[in-house]
């Protein structure tokens, strides 16, 4: 569905330096040799700190920007050359700004979108009814877009992006600034869209909840380069994230000696052990209970927030073992 | 620095932050100045001395109107309107600073900035292309006072129109009427001295003439001695009266906002 090969995008920035009118030119490599491909039906999360190149990638995928070099194919088309043909086959949602019209009621905005995409009246009715039900649009269809809450507006934007039933949906930070309930509605909707309709979805986000809840595959971009590409489990492993067993013994004791399960810390009766990859937590617990008087036991996984924070801090830490 | 001078200073800096945009506007102002000057020259060629102006006066008048478009914001509107529309004005009204004084200070900063950035270029180019009338030190000083009064008057008028938005469902109608009055009765389109008989007298008695026609007359030295005092007094009286009306309307707007619980 998407194919990017060695794509680079550079910008020339002219900045005024100091108070004088002299201008300084700097070349910024917003995207620097990124390659990846997305299969039909995938749900890919595209992650990265601000200014990492996420939005630039999205703009190249949708044909808004022309890449400086490299090859981009979306749905078999070159976005920069076949922008309008591609537009009929993909849907795009920008979380930061609406693609709807401020002064028009949502219903009229959607009518305009129908005209833009030349969706047949019949197909439009069915699709609108469907989207209205799923996204709960009914209460505010007659409200001008400027009066909608952020969550309502986002749902309206989603409907507008899906009226023409696109094969690929591209979302740039769709949950930014949304309240908990709206977030849940949007996530639930996207999950269903991907599962039931088979729509390929690519979303960029800051919200790791989106990734954990939705994406089978994660890609991390930093300083214009791909820093990681794989599933969540692989991300945990790559980041050196491990599973730990926190054991609370009846009384302070010397470090537990269990084959292949090293002890990391001992704090009085509480000891923390590191579970190696592929270790069976249940059998380790059973072995523990057989040898020691255990009062409490807890399995702890490194949160995705921490993993990503580690990745952002620098590439080298990705492969280094965790040191907590 | 007190808060009111600071507001003016801040507005001056804010409106000067994008000099390129203002310079671009000055290009259009200058172009219109050349066109208006040519048209008036043709009229004064047919009717020399019309309304007590000579040809150089008429040409100078054309460029003066263009130089004053920005400072007296002849096309109307102010940022306060946007704040009333969004309801942010409620916050302004809760500040310990008078709403009208605040926005007047803001407008003075804006006018100063646009006078420099958009006022000077048309006069310079006009002076290069045509024979302009340049004032002596006395007329220049009187003109400076007259421009300040014109800015006050312009603010007073626009403030009233803007506050009307508290009561109107759709303010675009009153904006359109205000625009027509301000463009035609200020002398912007044709100098009021060229208006025939009674229409000219009526136009000259209305406040809009204080925006462009009166400052231009003062600049051109057509008002001296008692006439000058009368001209400046005319501007000052309208400004004072309309500012007072603005105060009354501000109180009414406050009461209305309180009644709505907003």
């Amino acid at each position, binding site marked *: 569905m998407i194919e990017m090969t060695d794509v680079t995008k550079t*910008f020339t920035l002219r900045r005024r330096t100091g108070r004088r009118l002299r201008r300084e030119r700097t070349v910024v490599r917003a995207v620097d040799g990124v390659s990846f491909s997305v299969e039909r039906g995938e749900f890919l999360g595209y992650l990265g700190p601000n200014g990492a190149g996420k939005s*630039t990638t999205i*703009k190249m995928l949708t044909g*808004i*920007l*022309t890449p*400086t070099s490299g090859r981009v194919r979306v749905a078999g088309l070159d976005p*920069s050359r076949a*922008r*309008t*043909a591609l*537009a*009929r086959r*993909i849907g*795009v949602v*920008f979380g930061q*700004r609406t*693609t709807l019209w401020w*002064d*028009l*009621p949502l219903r*009229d905005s959607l*009518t*305009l979108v129908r*005209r*833009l995409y*030349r969706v047949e009246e019949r197909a439009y009715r069915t699709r609108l009814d469907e989207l209205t039900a799923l996204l709960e649009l009914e209460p505010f269809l007659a409200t001008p877009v400027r009066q909608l809450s952020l969550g309502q507006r986002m749902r309206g934007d989603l409907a507008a992006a899906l009226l023409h039933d696109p094969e690929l949906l591209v979302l740039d930070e769709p949950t930014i600034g949304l309240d908990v309930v709206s977030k849940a509605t949007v996530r639930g909707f996207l999950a269903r869209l991907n599962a039931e309709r088979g729509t390929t979805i690519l979303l960029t986000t800051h919200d790791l909840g989106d990734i954990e809840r939705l994406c089978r595959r994660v890609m991390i971009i930093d300083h214009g380069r791909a820093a990681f590409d794989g599933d969540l489990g692989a991300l945990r492993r790559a980041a050196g994230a491990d599973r730990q067993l926190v054991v609370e013994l009846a009384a302070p004791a010397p470090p537990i000696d269990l084959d292949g399960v090293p002890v990391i810390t001992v704090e009085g009766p509480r000891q923390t052990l590191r579970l190696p990859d592929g270790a069976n937590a249940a059998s380790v617990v059973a072995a523990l209970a057989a040898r020691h008087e255990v009062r409490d036991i807890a399995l702890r996984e490194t949160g995705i927030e921490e993993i990503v924070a580690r990745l952002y801090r620098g590439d080298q830490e990705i492969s280094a073992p965790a040191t907590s | 620095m007190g808060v009111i001078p600071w507001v003016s200073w801040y507005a001056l800096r804010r409106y000067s932050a*994008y000099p*390129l*945009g*203002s*310079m*671009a*506007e000055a*290009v*259009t102002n200058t*172009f*219109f100045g*050349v*066109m208006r000057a*040519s*048209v008036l020259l*043709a*009229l004064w*060629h*047919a*009717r020399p001395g019309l309304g007590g102006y000579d040809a150089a006066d008429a040409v100078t008048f054309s460029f003066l109107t263009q130089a004053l478009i920005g400072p007296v914001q002849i096309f109307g509107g102010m940022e306060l309107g946007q704040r009333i529309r969004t309801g942010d004005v409620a916050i302004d009204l809760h500040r310990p600073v008078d709403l009208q004084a605040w926005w007047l200070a803001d407008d003075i900063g804006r006018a100063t900035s646009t006078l420099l950035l958009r006022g000077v270029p048309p006069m310079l180019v006009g002076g290069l292309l045509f024979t302009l009338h340049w004032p002596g030190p006395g007329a220049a000083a009187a003109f400076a006072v007259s421009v300040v009064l014109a800015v006050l008057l312009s603010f007073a008028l626009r403030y009233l129109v803007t506050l009307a938005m508290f009561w109107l469902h*759709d303010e*675009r*109608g009153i904006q*359109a*009427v205000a625009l*027509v009055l301000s*463009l*035609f009765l200020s002398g912007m*389109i*044709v100098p009021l001295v*060229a*208006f*025939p008989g009674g229409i000219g007298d009526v136009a000259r008695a209305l406040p809009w003439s204080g925006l462009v026609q009166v400052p231009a007359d003062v600049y051109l030295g057509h008002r001296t001695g008692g006439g000058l005092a009368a001209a400046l007094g005319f501007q000052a009286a309208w400004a004072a009266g309309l500012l007072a009306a603005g105060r009354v309307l501000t109180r009414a707007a406050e009461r209305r906002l309180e009644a709505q619980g907003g």
Partner: protein
Amino acid sequence: MASADTAPGIAARGTRAVSTYCLLAWTWIRAAAQYPVSITLLALGTALTAGLDVAGIMVLFSRTPRIAGFSAAEVLFLYGTSALAFSVSDILLGTTERLGEHVREGTLDALLVRPVSPLIQIATEDFTPRRFGRIVPPVLVLALAIPRLGVAWTPGRVAMVPLMLASGTVIFGGVWVLCAAVQFVLLNSHGATKALTYGGATLTQYPMTVFARDFVRGVTFVVPLAFVNWEPALYVLGRPDPLNLPGWTRFASPVVGAVVCAVAAVAWRGGLRHYRSTGN
């Protein structure tokens, strides 16, 4: 839907663009029509503002029977043809002057992910019946001025009037797009390009004999505004050309219109390409 993906001919693409334009404009009109009273009043207000130029011309002629050698009826004929052509072009393409705003606010991106030219999308934005108020003054003025011109209405002169209105509209249309295209590169140029659009509209309301010769040469050859109505009007009014241009220039307006549009199209494409390679 599939036909859009194969490359259609220029004629088919043109028809499609026009039909898309009409569909979108109609959708906007229907949205605005929910407030008919407001729209009517605003259209009247627009007509009133647009009529100010006529009022100005009337004031001039209250003081003198001729200006730069032209009578009131002749100047009003120039005003009517210029203002009608400009108003129609403004109704159709005037909102393209907001391009810089769209670029600054990043809303252009949203237009670029849709399967319709961003030019059509911007031009139809906020399309409201209110704008039609602008054509009222020139239509009334033309209706009053044409019978008072006192020229012998040969078939050629009769045919020239609609032709000059159409070419004038096309020239102004090209100027709108050209000025919008400049904003892709010079974001703050809107203030200055108004000299070409609104300035051009005011300029062509008066006989060129009012203006200095070099100025007229500039608006004849550099920005060909003199072809909006001046050159064809000389033919209709049976007057000699003060610039002594050859006789065929009286009939050149349609060709000039085509050239202006071609230049505007190239500029627009160039501007869009610039935007897509630099972003914002």
